[in-house]
């Protein structure tokens, strides 16, 4: 459904735009119908930039992003694109204009996309969408954003996407600002939406969340793909030193951190045979599990902090 091919993003920085900053380098992956793909990375990995490019909020410097084969930048009518692709962002409170009521996000959709739908019919649709995200319409309609909780606001944004009956949702760190007890509800909601055929790009820095809900995972570092493939393979059998060090640093509830040094293993990319390099910069070490060069000459993972 959604395919990225050799996508790069270059920003001009410096006093007169002299220097270049490559936020994303040569990234390519796919998201299919009814599939959740996690984009995992730390800050500076380019994961949010990718999300914004897919949402056409930022331009693509090189490479192509296609939806069903059509280059998205060639779709002249943005509204047509947004009918199929929508986004939800990290901070639920900043997504709502504080001077208006929260359900204005729904009326904006109605004005732009469903101007001819009657008021009663529209209200039924809104209530159905709210119920599908497990919100009680009576609790959330007619209120201001500061009267609602982060979890409720986040779910209303998802309901907004459901109203449009989209095919792809870009969820950019939507969990990180929620309370622990509501995080899992929103994650379960994403899983339910996946079951209904929605494709989701789940951008996060939290490996446990990505592991819980996604089918496939893409691990990014400084704008490049380090490892990608089926989630259980990437997490269960990590082939890249970076992935391994990430997994070693994740605090687990039933195990304390060990001081074990990330063992130096030969670079998986260069160990793999030539004909397994089916994607640019990546070698296929097992079916649907790709890894990039470890930056050879031993494990080059220094502490980024």
């Amino acid at each position: 459904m959604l395919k990225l091919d050799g996508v790069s993003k270059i920003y001009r920085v410096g006093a007169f735009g002299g220097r270049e900053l490559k936020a994303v380098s040569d990234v390519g992956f796919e998201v299919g119908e009814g599939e959740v793909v996690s984009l995992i990375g730390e800050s500076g990995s380019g994961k949010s930039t990718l999300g914004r490019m897919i949402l056409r909020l930022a331009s693509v410097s090189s490479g192509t992003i296609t939806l069903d084969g059509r280059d998205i930048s060639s779709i002249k009518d943005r509204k047509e694109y947004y009918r199929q692709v929508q986004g939800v962002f990290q901070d639920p409170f900043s997504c709502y204009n504080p001077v208006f009521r929260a359900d204005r996000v729904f009326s904006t959709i109605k004005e732009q996309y469903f101007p001819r739908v009657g008021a009663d019919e529209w209200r039924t649709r809104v209530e159905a969408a709210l119920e599908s995200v497990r919100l009680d319409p009576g609790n959330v309609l007619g209120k201001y954003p500061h009267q609602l909780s982060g979890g409720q606001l986040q779910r209303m944004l998802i309901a907004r996407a459901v109203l449009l009956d989209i095919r792809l949702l870009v969820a950019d760190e939507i969990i990180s600002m929620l309370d622990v007890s509501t995080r899992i509800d929103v994650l379960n909601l994403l899983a339910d939406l996946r079951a209904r055929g929605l494709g989701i790009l789940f951008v996060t820095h939290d490996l446990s969340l990505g592991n819980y809900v996604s089918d496939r995972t893409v691990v990014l570092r400084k704008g490049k793909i380090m490892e990608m493939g089926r989630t259980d393979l990437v997490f269960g059998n990590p082939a890249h030193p970076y992935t391994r060090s990430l997994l070693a640093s994740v605090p687990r509830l039933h195990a304390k951190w060990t001081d074990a040094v990330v063992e130096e293993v030969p670079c998986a990319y260069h160990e793999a045979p030539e004909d397994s390099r089916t994607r640019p910069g990546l070698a296929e070490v097992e079916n649907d599990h790709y890894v990039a060069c470890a930056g050879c000459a031993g494990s080059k993972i220094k502490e980024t902090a």
Partner: protein
Amino acid sequence: MALNVTDLRVYYRTLRGEVKALDGVTFSVADREIMGLAGESGSGKSTLAKSLIRLDGRMRHVGGTVELDGAAMPLSDDGAMDEFRFRKVSLIPQYSMSALNPTRKIGKMVGELLESRGERADRAELERRLELVGLSKDVLDRYPIELSGGMKQRVVMVVSTLLNPSLLIADEVTSALDVSSQKAVATTLLGFRDHGLVTSMMVVTHDISLVYQIADTIMVMYAGRLAEKAPAEVLVTAPRHPYTRQLIAALPEVGVRYEDRRLTGIPGSPPSLLKPPGGCRFRDRCPLAFDRCAEQPPFAEVAPGHHVACWKAE
């Protein structure tokens, strides 16, 4: 006992009345103990952290006492508390790494800070401590913008502990950081205690799995009151308060997938603290609630070092 808090009550003044952010909290932190303070938003943990060092304009100390190393801390008296701040109690505030003055080199900022407190800056000691946390001493000649988030956080941590306080309070010091930086910062906190730079520590966080890695005891707060306090291992494997149980059960972990085991959250939301309900505040969301819950259960010791505020936690 390093810190003794007895029935502390701190309310916020707002236009609509008083928000009972901290409503009767009693606990102790022993010498050389790292206590994790866990809770969600609105639980009162940040209020507790802040009130132990400085009440800001909106907070009001309504009742209760705090004793540090035998001396009573005059919470309501801003001037008298000055003696305690930075020397006996030190706070690493939330978002402090973003609060570094961008126009000052780190070394200069530290010097100015110490001068304002009437202390002399000991450059050698400062460098020794920076090295202890894994930073090179030329950090002092850099501007904040040249450092990464984790590095800034560690600089702030070094500054906060320069005078070897008895109690260090770390308020959400890892929330804005990447996974690898989180581990570095958390192990740094551990290092402070192990090297004797601080006597005891309170680590405020919403991330229980992180605080489990370094804390000796964990205390869980809910809606301004204490729910449970137990040794870290016990709290995570055998919690007795229904809230703690549900909270632990709602945490996704690497290795747990939706298809294998669907986790559930806690339905409902915490009560408003403007007019909190009488009795146990978790009552409305608790699956074990019964009549006696209309009366607030005491924070009782059900096992050595294990306190729970629940009638059913026998």
